[in-house]
Every structure is written in C-alpha cells, then in structure tokens.
C-alpha cells in the first residue's frame, strides 16, 4: 500500500466538509486529457457524497510535454489568494483544450479577480515553490500517472472511470459508517 506523503494539511486546497469520513486526493495535470475526463466524474462524486467527502487537489504537472500545465497550476494558486481556487480549477478543466497564457488572465477577469494582484501572484516564487512541492509530494507518494487518487491517505490503484471510483468510495463509506 502506497501512502500519501505528506498527509493533507491546511496548506492544501480542499473542498467540502473538513471532517468528512472520506478524504479524496487527486494528483492532476490541467493539460492531461485523462484528468479532463476525470473532472466531471469527480464533480459527480462530490455531488452524490456531499458532506461525506472532502476533496483535495494536488498539482502534478508534466511540464516538458504539457507546456500550459504549470502556468495553469499557478493560476489556480494565484486565484486561491483571492478565494477562487475551485472556480479557477473548474474553468481551466472546462476549457482544457484551448489553454494558453492569455486564457488564464481572461479566466481571472471572468471570475472577477483583482487583475493586478492576480498577475503579480502568477509570478510569485512562493506559489511556484508550492506547485513544485505538490509535484515532489506526488513523486514521494508513488504517483505514476495522472490522475492518481488517494483515499484516506492510501493510493487507489483501481479504475476510476465511469462509476468505478464512486462505487468504491460508497463501499469505503459503508465500512466506515458501520464502525
């Protein structure tokens, strides 16, 4: 069993009930088509599991083959400084096939971000280091493709497509609820 290193903490971007029974972590790359396919699947899981789920996204950009993946990750972190992490995360995945540097600025405008602050934050070394830390955490945790999921700190090795991940999470939830 491969474990998540380091565990989820307050520096992570998380969504949902902080005390949920299930903590789902995704290592993803905004330019990876498989992550694009996983996006609506995770959205649906969030909707169905509601307060039983906390969802965390960590960046795992393959920069050499996905030139927009790192800037995209930075855009989400810059948006997080204005409390719009998930809004930026969503809009990037929803426009995954047409990403470029100008797009992130446009997304900032659409989301009503302070444009100057957003542009400055996009260049911030601290945020670049944060994205790199996410990547390193993925390396340490045995991430070998994107997306890779961890459920309550343990790597999920099975299929995530269609309803596989949802069904698995339901069974985990069933076990935890009995306890």
């Amino acid at each position, binding site marked *: 069993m*491969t474990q998540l290193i380091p565990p989820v903490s307050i520096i992570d971007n998380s969504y949902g009930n902080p005390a949920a029974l299930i903590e789902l972590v995704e290592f993803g*790359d905004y330019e*990876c*088509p*498989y*992550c694009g396919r996983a996006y609506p699947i995770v959205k649906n899981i969030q909707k169905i599991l509601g307060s039983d789920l906390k969802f965390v996204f960590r960046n795992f950009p*393959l*920069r*050499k*083959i996905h030139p927009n993946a790192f800037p995209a990750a930075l855009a989400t972190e810059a948006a997080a400084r204005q409390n719009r992490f998930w809004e930026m995360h969503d809009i990037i995945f929803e426009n995954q096939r047409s990403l470029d540097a100008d797009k992130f600025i446009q997304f900032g405008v659409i989301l009503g971000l302070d444009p100057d602050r957003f542009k400055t934050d996009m260049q911030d070394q601290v945020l670049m280091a944060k994205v790199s830390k996410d*990547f*390193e955490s993925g*390396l*340490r*945790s*045995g*991430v*070998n*493709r*994107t997306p890779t999921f961890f459920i309550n700190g343990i790597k999920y090795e099975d299929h995530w497509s269609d309803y596989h991940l949802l069904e698995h999470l339901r069974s985990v939830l069933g076990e935890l609820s009995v306890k």
Partner: protein
Amino acid sequence: MLPIGILAPDFELFSTPDQKLRLSELKGKKVVLAFYPADWSPVCGDQMSLYNEMGKYFARHNAMVVGVSVDSKWSHLAFIEDRHFHFPLLSDFEPKGEVARLYQVYDAGTGESKRALYVIDENSVIRWSYLSPVGINPGADGILNALEEIDNLKMVIQ
C-alpha cells in the same frame, strides 16, 4: 534480477544514431538504469516522461537516468524528439535484448525487456533493483528512496 552488491556488468549501446554510450563512462555518477518494454506508451502514465520531469531531483543526488529498450535508435530518436527527453535512451537492438539478458530482465515471450529498475552507485555497484508489473509505471518513490539511502549511508561512514 542481478543481486544487490555486485558490480554492474558493463555494456555499450547506441544512444543516438551515431553515438554509443558505455556504462563505465558514467562512473562517478549514480545511474538509474531503467529497462522498459517499448517506446510510445501513453503520455500521462509514461515512465520516461515522469523521469524527464525529475532532472533536479536526480541532480541533487549526483544521479542520471538512462532508459533501455529493444527499440531501434531511430525509434528512440523520434520518441526523444516527441517527448522532449533530456536523458539518453539506449537501443538494445542488435543482438536484440543482449543487455536486458545480461541484467536478467529479458522477456523472451514478448521479445521485449521487462519493466525493471537498477540503481547503480558511483563505483558501479548495484545498490537497488525493482521489477515492476509490465503494464505499470513503477513511479519514482523507490528510486528516490534508494538514492537517498546511498547518500545517507555515505554520511554515516564518513
């Protein structure tokens, strides 16, 4: 797989269409020898694409990665250009799989190398190895732990 603690057998293979690389030329550096079945696996789960992102982590340990498969040097060249690799891919092409056999990771059934890793230290000693299920990218955690352990042990001895 070859046992831990022995000298890594030396070999020479094409790294580009007109250049060969001999393992012993890399003495003084740690070498991650990554045998893999074939070029052109899907990008998002590709082992070589993952290692390609790890230059600074390997450099931190005075290590470099070298990929080995039975693909021809021309396939490697196209694969390297397509994926922007910054490390060599060696062509174990003629006699086919000879180096994979030498390292006991050749799969005669498929005519390809198995997916296997060796970490070799600065003195060409095999320090860690791992055989992965063929369809699964073994990731990087095992390699990073092995590199760290070699460096930590050195600090203890010094």
